[in-house]
């Protein structure tokens, strides 16, 4: 049997005369967290909507757990748990009533399973309250509980961290990590925030203007930032001005910004720079590689957009 939990084949969506996405092909293996990365309007949501049956497929096909969304819609949907756009639940009902309603849809989802997922998303205390009293983070967790009820093969989350505070984002990340490592759940998340993807996903597919530009593991993407040998370092020292003028005399590209001296250089010159600065009596507190910034550079480079 095929090993892919989700297989998207040459997917195309045309609305009117506009091609929204085209030639999207991805394969997700069991237990991996795949990130769908792209700017707003790149076609992430459209692709996800086609996977979960909300939008009609113009061309191509999608298989979820081996069932085609086109030919065996019911079979495919049984394998999916999802939140698309916002975690919209029935606000006039309690969280528990919401879960009970969705539990009815699937065979074999009993009270015990409902309690189990409530525990997983850590919503035990508020589960009997009406959903309209929930915070966004709680709604998001209830949404995940709802998506996990029938133990789907794949969890699909469209912008799951949208609107969450940093603590909420961290919780979400840990929850997804835990689910995929403990239960072998495959997760597809979309986001336009690079740093988030880097911490959450195993592999990332970058989508731009309706096309997949590249699919790479997070490590590969990060390595790309150091290729070509140029890196940006942020130097923190006891005398930034002096460091700055010294660096300029060394013919290094640099500038003073709020958080320190930004040095753009090649890797092999770094020891030389440190030595010179130390010899001149400058106390170095720290020197960091600006990683998120670099990932953004990769992204910009890949999408062909100038900063």
């Amino acid at each position: 049997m095929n090993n892919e939990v989700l297989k998207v084949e040459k997917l195309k969506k045309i609305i009117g005369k506009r091609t929204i996405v085209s030639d999207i092909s991805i394969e997700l293996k069991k237990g991996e967290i795949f990130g769908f990365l792209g700017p707003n309007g790149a076609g992430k949501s459209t692709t996800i909507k086609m996977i979960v049956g909300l939008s009609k497929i113009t061309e191509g096909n999608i298989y979820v757990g081996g069932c085609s969304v086109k030919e065996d819609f019911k079979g495919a949907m049984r394998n999916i748990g999802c939140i698309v756009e916002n975690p919209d639940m029935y606000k006039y009902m309690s969280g528990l009533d919401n879960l009970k309603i969705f539990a009815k849809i699937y065979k074999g989802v009993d009270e015990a399973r409902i309690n189990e997922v409530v525990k997983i998303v850590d919503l035990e205390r508020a589960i009997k309250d009406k959903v309209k009293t929930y915070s966004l983070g709680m709604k998001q967790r209830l949404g995940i509980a709802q998506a996990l009820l029938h133990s789907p093969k794949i969890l699909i989350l469209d912008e799951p961290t949208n609107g969450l505070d940093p603590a909420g984002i961290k919780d979400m990340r840990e929850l997804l990590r835990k689910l995929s490592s403990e239960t072998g759940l495959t997760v597809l998340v979309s986001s336009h925030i690079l740093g988030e993807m880097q911490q959450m996903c195993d592999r990332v597919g970058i989508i731009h203007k309706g096309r997949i530009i590249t699919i790479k593991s997070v490590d590969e993407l990060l390595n790309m930032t150091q290729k070509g040998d140029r890196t940006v370092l942020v130097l923190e020292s006891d005398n930034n001005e002096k460091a700055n003028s010294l660096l300029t005399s060394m013919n290094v590209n640099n500038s003073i910004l709020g958080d320190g001296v930004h040095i753009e250089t090649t890797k092999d010159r770094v020891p030389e720079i440190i030595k010179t600065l130390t010899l001149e009596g400058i106390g170095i507190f720290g020197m960091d590689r600006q990683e998120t910034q670099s990932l953004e550079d990769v992204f910009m480079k890949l999408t062909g957009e100038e900063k």
Partner: protein
Amino acid sequence: MGNFFTLVSIENTKLWKRLSTKIMLLIIIVIIIAATSIVKYYNVSHNVSNTTKISENWKQELQQGVVMQKTQLKQLQDGTDKMSKFMIGSTKMSIAESEYRINNNIKPESQSSIWSKVTKFDTQARYSLIIALMLIISCSALVAGEFSEGTMKMMISRPYKRSEILSAKLIATILYGLVLLVTTFLLNFILIGIFNGFNGMGAKEMLWTSSKIIYIPAALKTIIIFGLDFLTVLVYVILAFAISAISRSRSIATGFSLFLLLAGSGMLQMLAIFFSWGKYLPFGTSDFSSIVNTGACIEGTTLAFSIGIATIYSIIFCFAGYFAFQKRDI
């Protein structure tokens, strides 16, 4: 199939979990109690007698009436005034009723049975309008409401066909309608019984079928009239349902359907009176119970004709709604 019933029960739960559903049921109960009590209070305080004297020579009196009505009918039929033509149906019915009484020796009742009181109250108070109003509200909440609340996408990405989801919503609405209908009927019956006595339970009454009179138990006639009123309600509910599915807007669905129910049907009825093609328009002849109750007000329509036209339009509305819902990207 078992799966589909689960879906209906889900929609039903969603409907009843809405506060408005319970409030609407409560409103209907309050209205019925209030209306029946007020009428009773008026009758008692104004000494309205609920018996009428029937003279010994009722046959002659009826005969005279028939002669008069027949000349009236001839004038109506020969006349060119379109407006007065809507009287033709009721005149025909009145003649037929009188003749039936004379021929079969049925003396007019001195006191109407509880059944005819219930029917009369129901048609005069127009409870079916209230039921229609409430069903339109709850139907558009179930369909268009789920679009605006964003929960529709939670339902679509499930192992169900879209048509099944939509059908379950329609069935849940109709079930709610039946609850309202039965509540209205029982409450009306019990209250009128308590206020005026449960007499004439086994009485028989004449039912006008647009061509002849049949003599049936009064209870059956009451049930038929309630049933026909409910059919009328269903036509509007299906319209609201289709507009909800197409427009995804609760306000458009509710507003448009209510407008048609309250004002539009009257306008379409006028068209049907003035133009011979008017009766083929939707809603012009969709007041089914009036056809058996007071006679058809549009020339050349019968109950079967009206129901047939309404069925055809309902199917068209349904088809449009399902088609839009099926094809739509959500």
